[in-house]
């Protein structure tokens, strides 16, 4: 997923950026302690500067808008290609819902510069498809294929690590932020046993400490009770394959958060009955 390149006279060199990230890794508090161990060897991490785009810090320097970090962990395992008799396969509807979500965010001026989106897919391997990027800078949405099993634990582990890194970056740059969101969408059960247990517990702990909004969304045959372990609120089940309604709700929620005058305010989210069976 490409981001627009912004000209920046203050762009640091790649060498200084790597040195900075080493320093940051040393400073980031032990999310790894919560997760117990190194990132899974299967995780593929696309470093944001490998394709020559500007480093995130430039946007944080030039745009002081309070940020709402929205991390999507999407199940793109083989089961998402199955036809459940409701028209197109779930993966297609997920892809389309995502496109509509980004478009909705970009149509809201304030939200487009406030919401930062990141996407991790779990389909056989864990892949960071999009590092944190303001919605305004997201140029195009790729389509995800469905393949492999569901290392959801590894996906959440990477997601939590990236969220902590991003919050540290906000603080370093003096940019305020709302409570970040972790949104997990899955149609089955995690296949990485031990890692899932550790990651779910870490997410639940952060949610309980009000340091994270953890939203678990189950699709059709998802194991809702297992998904619920990663949040202080029960996992919600999507009505059929109504990804469109879910992403519309998510974009409205993000807009309301961004519209809040203050990062300290309480946000009233829209009801979920348009997309969830409760």
């Amino acid at each position, binding site marked *: 997923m490409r981001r627009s390149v912004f000209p920046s006279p*203050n762009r640091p060199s790649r060498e200084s950026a790597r040195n900075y990230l080493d320093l940051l890794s040393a400073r980031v508090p032990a999310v790894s302690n919560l997760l117990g161990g190194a990132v899974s060897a299967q995780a593929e991490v696309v470093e944001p500067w490998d394709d020559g785009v500007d480093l995130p810090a430039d946007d944080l*320097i*030039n*745009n*002081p*808008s309070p940020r709402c970090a929205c991390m999507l962990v999407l199940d793109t395992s083989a089961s998402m290609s199955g036809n459940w008799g409701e028209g197109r396969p779930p993966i297609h509807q997920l892809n389309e819902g995502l496109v509509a979500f980004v478009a909705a965010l970009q149509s809201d*001026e*304030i939200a487009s*510069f406030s919401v930062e989106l990141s996407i991790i897919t779990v389909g056989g391997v864990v892949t960071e498809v999009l590092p944190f990027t303001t919605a*305004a800078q997201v140029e195009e949405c790729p389509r995800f294929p469905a393949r492999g099993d569901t290392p959801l634990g590894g996906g959440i582990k990477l997601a939590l690590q990236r969220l902590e890194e991003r919050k540290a970056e906000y*603080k*370093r*740059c*003096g*940019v*305020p932020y709302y409570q970040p969101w972790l949104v997990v969408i899955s149609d089955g059960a995690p296949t990485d046993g031990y890692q899932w247990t550790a990651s779910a517990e870490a997410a639940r702990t952060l949610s309980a400490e009000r340091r994270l909004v953890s939203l678990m969304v189950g699709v059709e045959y998802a194991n809702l009770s297992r998904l619920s372990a990663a949040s202080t609120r029960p996992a919600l089940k999507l009505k059929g394959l109504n990804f469109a309604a879910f992403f519309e709700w998510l974009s409205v929620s993000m807009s309301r958060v961004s*519209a809040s*005058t*203050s*990062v*300290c*305010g309480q946000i*009233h989210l829209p009801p979920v009955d348009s997309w969830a069976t409760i």
Partner: protein
Amino acid sequence: MFYYAPERRRRSALAASSANEAMNTVYSREGKCRYLGSLYATGGEGAIYPLLERADLLVKIYHAQVLEKRGELLQDKVLMMCEQQHHRNNGRLAWPLIPVYDAYRRWIGYAMYRRQGVPMAKLAHAMLYERHFPGLDRRRVTGYLLNLLRTIRELHDGGVMLGDCNLRNILCDPSSEEISLIDCDSFQVELGEWVYTCPVGFPDMTPEEHHGQDFSLVVRTQESEAFSIAIVLFMALMLGRHPYDVQGGGERAENLRRASFPYGVGNSGIPAGRWYNIWSHMPYRLKALFIRTLVEGAHDPRKRATLAEWINAIEQYRKEIDKGYHEVAMEPTAPKSRTYRGSGRAQST
């Protein structure tokens, strides 16, 4: 003096009515039916509709759950406000004019003049100001701010405080320097011995003495308002940068309580980027007021700059801009040097 404690009087709960959610008619106090247009805007408290027969009027209908929770208090407040002739006639306010009722003769909201403009939240926005205010320069910003300050002064003279100083509730006309204030029903209104409080507030826009309190029970003073106004002025002059955004610092409210204003003496913690450049080009008089209000004034209300001081300082700034003494660009490309003697470009007035 008494302040209106919402717990004292409770209304019997209205049955939650879905009719309010899709309104097309309202009634005047005399029972005359008026037709509404399509939904104009919606917020946490209510929905706004245009009045079909009067293009210059809008109607605010409170949500059913808001009426159920505090409808009696709101009704008292709004009816009192509707009778305040002086503020009704202020062309810069979307002041409640007349109450409106539903088909069951229950009070549900009020009508007000439609005020046009772009929220100041988009003027004080580093990424959006050029889109909505093409050609914006610091002289125009001083115009908006002076009109805002004079309007607030008129309100204060009439026993009204904004309470929640919110950039989204200040509309700016991109083709002039006019401003309007909306969401007037949230203002703190003093009537005789009673004070109808402003139930809204946020810690990063509010002085420390009101933190941790229920805003519906807080009576704002000129000193507490002065602190919030200083933050609004700073953000408007600094492209939306909050004064308590500190590089490597904590949350805004936390920095506020510690009076960690990074642009003060020593300049520690100013976020990287254009912010120091912009601050450096502000005249000394303005900088001094910000430093006094946001550092010393963070803990001592008496140190906060008054409306009169802000008006004097910004008027002086505007005159100096007209004489070419200051940079007028919103984003100067370099910090002001000690030998800087102005842009040399006298402004036509």
